[in-house]
């Protein structure tokens, strides 16, 4: 299983039936493909859809039914459309249970940086700041290190923040980490890495729970 699928599959296990979930662009979008059988979540997209369904068959795309990344999607029976103000009432008002987002950096205080690299990449924050501030639970789904091998998990973010202290859980291909007021608590670790290796690849001090589990590969 490739790392992205592994991360997405693990994140998908965090949901409970009835959860309203907003998935960010990129890796987080993959999470929709791994929802466990018997769990029914409702996907929200900030461009104004509730009840997103699977990707349309090729040739069946409707140009007016897209997600917030402009990819074609579908809507399930019982879904609905609304305007942007209503969409962010849902998001900012705490009516979205979980948001899953990627990160450039995340730190042990739950700070998140995922919207710009000064002087280099300034796409704008889109709906990310509202999602991270408003959703009841914020899960970061990302590869553990940057392409050059640097750690994305730090004592303190150095890039401009998306939100302060809002991250609840970090899921990478190496581990599942919970943000606590004592620091990052490792709940699960991948079978192909040791605690020491994980710590060495992480820019913040890790705490390991006594009930540390092996991070399961999805089937």
């Amino acid at each position, binding site marked *: 299983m490739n790392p992205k699928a592994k991360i997405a599959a693990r994140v998908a296990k965090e949901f409970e039936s009835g959860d309203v979930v907003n998935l960010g662009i990129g890796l987080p979008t993959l999470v929709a493909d791994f929802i466990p059988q018997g769990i029914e979540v409702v996907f929200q997209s900030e461009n104004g859809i509730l009840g997103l369904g699977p990707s349309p068959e090729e040739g069946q795309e409707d140009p007016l039914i897209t997600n917030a990344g402009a990819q074609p999607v579908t809507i399930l029976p019982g879904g609905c459309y609304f305007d942007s*103000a209503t969409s962010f009432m849902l998001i900012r008002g705490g009516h979205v249970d979980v948001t899953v987002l990627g990160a450039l950096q995340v730190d042990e205080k739950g700070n998140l940086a995922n919207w710009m690299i000064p002087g280099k990449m300034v796409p704008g924050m889109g709906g990310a*700041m509202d999602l991270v501030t408003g959703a009841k639970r914020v899960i970061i789904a990302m590869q553990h290190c940057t392409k050059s091998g640097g750690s994305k998990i730090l004592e303190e973010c150095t890039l401009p923040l998306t939100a302060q202290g809002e991250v609840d859980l970090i899921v990478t291909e190496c581990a599942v980490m919970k943000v606590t007021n004592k620091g990052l608590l490792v709940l699960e670790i991948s079978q192909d890495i040791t605690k020491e290796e994980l710590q060495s690849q992480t820019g913040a001090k890790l705490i390991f729970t006594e009930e540390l589990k092996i991070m399961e590969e999805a089937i």
Partner: protein
Amino acid sequence: MSKIINRQEFADLLRDDLSIMVGGFLGVGTPESLIDAVIESGIKDITLICNDTGFPDKGVGKWITKKIVKKAITSHIGTNPESGNQLNSGETLFDLTPQGTLAEQIRAAGAGLGGILTPTGIGTIAAEGKEIIKIKEKEYILEEALSADMAFIKAVKADKKGNLVYIKAARNFNPIMAFAADIVVAEVDEIVEAGEIDPDNVVTPSVLVDYIVLGVK
């Protein structure tokens, strides 16, 4: 007096230095015909208010490409490389705003409210230089209401009085912009008689819409 105008009459409403809200989300629910007509009119120095700057050849991105925008207040420019170039060169000003804040600032202007009190952006550069108000021990940024000279919006259908309905994900910023500009022009795919839209299903009430333009398919 009929609210229905043609593209020439639309062009006659335009001038340099306008602040213009444009509906749409990455080119979905965008008034493409009006956007093209603005380019043809030759006006410049637009202050643009929109969710995103679309793509170089789609949506308001076309205005960026043509360099007729002086300043854009928007939440996302990442899908339009031309925006990034002009931001880096300093040719165009970009005021990047969280999407929910932008939506609510526009709504506040349309609702006669002075601004909004949002938790979004606290502790980030989005809060810099802004007043912070504490309510029940929680901090909120005071963001001012945002209005414009004109709003160009897209609906699927209008009746002759100006009532609008939208379809699917093409609703987005259009209904709130209809409240927030001095002159509101709606591009639609279809115009029907007054009374043909179920009054329970009207999303934008007639009185907000000044002009209706039938879009070019």
